[in-house]
């Protein structure tokens, strides 16, 4: 991009996807909905030059899971696209087809929070051990370790 991207340009362009908020000087947060996320990422990639994914962070705020997709551009602005997923049905569509590095983040989020990403090519465990029990997601706020459950490792009678 030759002409500089200003925050007004981003606000104008991203208004249709949801509320735009400038949280810090170089950081803009866009609160959108899961259905519009693919379009939003396509727009920020193609029009505004945010072509690199930094990270996908997840917040368990009690009622919902909030996913934040942080993208950075050569003009050193960071845009955070945020979506909310309901706790009882944490399913969203993958963005690994648009942003290939998102695949490994989504596998990790699937491990630790139990959020399912539809269309992900290989959503298997990446960070937890292989014999970790199903339906146990350790970074959820309401998760408690059960002393009777075998979580993996070597099966030793603990004293």
């Amino acid at each position: 991009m030759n002409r500089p991207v200003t925050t007004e340009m981003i606000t104008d362009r991203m208004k249709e996807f949801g509320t735009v908020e400038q949280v810090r000087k170089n950081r803009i947060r866009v609160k959108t909905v899961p259905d519009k996320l693919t379009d939003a990422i396509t727009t920020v990639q193609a029009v505004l030059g945010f072509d690199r994914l930094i990270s996908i962070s997840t917040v368990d705020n009690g009622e919902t899971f909030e996913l934040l997709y942080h993208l950075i551009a050569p003009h050193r602005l960071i845009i955070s696209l945020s979506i909310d997923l309901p706790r009882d049905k944490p399913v969203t569509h993958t963005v690994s087809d648009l942003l290939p590095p998102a695949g490994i983040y989504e596998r990790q989020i699937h491990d630790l929070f139990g959020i399912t990403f539809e269309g992900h090519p290989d959503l298997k465990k990446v960070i937890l051990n292989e014999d970790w029990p199903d339906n146990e997601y350790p970074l959820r706020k309401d998760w408690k370790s059960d002393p009777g459950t075998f979580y993996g490792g070597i099966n030793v009678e603990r004293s």
Partner: protein
Amino acid sequence: MAGPGTGISQRLVNWARIKSPWITVYNSGGCNACDIEIIACLMPRFDVERFGILVKGSPRHADILIITGHVTLKQASRLRRVWEQMPEPKYVIAVGACGASGGVFHGLYHMMDCVESALPVDVYVAGCPPRPDEIINAVVTCLDLLREDASHGGKEWRQKKPVTGMAEKSPTVES
């Protein structure tokens, strides 16, 4: 193997083993501070090769396994497999507070309690991280143990209590 230290070849093997122990270093989930101290041991300032200590990449060539860090659940079976590949007599040194008790990570959801809950440990090194001289001291202590064991014909004389339930289930990893 013949009786304890009887044959000339066995005595030669014991002498060679004490003269030059080969170690392998395995990080089972630590923060790499202990690894840096071990690397400092290998560097010219501390220079463990003057004791004949040589770092090998493969556990099949090593006499002493140095474990740095706590044991995560995912690493436990791998660590156990590394240990099983080593030829007898094998010795284990757990370096740092994490290896002894889990350290600051003790009680987390993805942790074994200590290295001892995965495999038997011979020498512990305290510190977070320990100094390189303490690590060298641990290896030399291990050599004293090796010499004692060679004169007694095995590790049984120390009567180290085996970890309960270890033999029943060997770890399996689905590929």
